[in-house]
């Protein structure tokens, strides 16, 4: 504590030199994940629900892009379905996961959009 006080000339602990993590709102997730739906491991899911999820994911990404923010590692594993059957995007740490995003499109709008198209296609054609 004294070391910090010396560093900053204050008697207060300051967070500015020691951030080791962050916390996020917890989304009460359904036991069925989007990736399981795409892989056909979630039983029969109504096509209206799949269409709703695809549209929600696309809407969220459009909102991000409108604000110059890239999802980055866009893939079904990074979508949570909550207890109300709404789709949430997670993981904004960058990187890429083929075949959803390829190296040449990583961390770009194009990468996000190609991944969205692939997610929609796989989701709607899943059992």
């Amino acid at each position, binding site marked *: 504590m004294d070391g910090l006080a010396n560093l900053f000339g204050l008697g207060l602990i300051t967070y500015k030199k*020691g951030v080791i*993590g962050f916390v*996020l*709102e917890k989304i009460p997730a359904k036991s069925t994940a989007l990736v399981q739906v795409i892989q056909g491991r979630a039983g029969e899911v109504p096509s209206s629900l799949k269409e709703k999820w695809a549209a929600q994911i696309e809407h*969220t990404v459009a909102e991000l892009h409108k604000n110059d923010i890239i999802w980055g590692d866009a893939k079904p594993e990074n979508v949570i379905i909550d207890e109300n059957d709404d789709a949430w995007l997670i993981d904004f740490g960058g990187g890429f996961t083929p075949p959803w995003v390829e190296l040449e499109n990583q961390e770009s709008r194009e990468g996000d959009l190609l991944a969205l198209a692939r997610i929609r296609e796989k989701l709607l054609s899943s059992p």
Partner: protein
Amino acid sequence: MASEEFVVLGIDQSIDEYACTSSYKYNGREFSILLCDDPSRPGYDEKNDVVEGYLEKIYDVSAHDGANVEDSFRQHEYLQQAAREIGEIVLPLLREIAPSLPIAEAPPPEPKLSEMGTVEQFLYPNDQESVKLQLVALNGRLTLVEGHHLASIPDKDKPMTPEEMKGIEADLDTIPKFEASEVLLTTLYRGGMSAFGASIRGEEYVCKIISNFFRDPVIAELPTLLKIRKANLDPEARIPELRGVYFHHQQFQA
């Protein structure tokens, strides 16, 4: 040295599927031996088939859902066998270096409010010294990286540096701050060790830790989450909200 002083603790697979540690106790000190498929180190075999062989077999025997008792037994047996085999390889070096290492007095254990404890207890465990070594191959034979125990690991669980925080300080001012000792870990999410379920002052959160292995992606995520928070997105855009950062003040003492 009497052989009973050497205790095989077992293999820990919780890092990820491409790495694990095999742990031992010798003369009151704990040793963790890293097995990973990272690119080889200079001076050692470029092709590290022997270490990868262990990793593959460990992965293979662990690829089951726990429903079949025989699978679980097979996994247990092989993990024990691998830990014993690796133990035979590393024991001579442990004998050699153990006397030069100070024996840390084990402080009284802190009470844990959950099985995993707080972030602080998880990252900076208040227990006896653990010496970390890496298993590699030299001329086709398994060995340990020479002098590994003497090297400092400056990035280990290091908080964000001032350079890494450049440009986000003002935004960080707008969100709650917690101490690592307040963040109670409750669940490990998905593979790896970066996302946990956590509880702070009775509220449930998802917690991301800037630890050694996942440092870069977790650090990269924070500015984006701050930007999302500031962007005031349409309420129909569903992204878990950044609720705060936590810090460990002791890292910068002395």
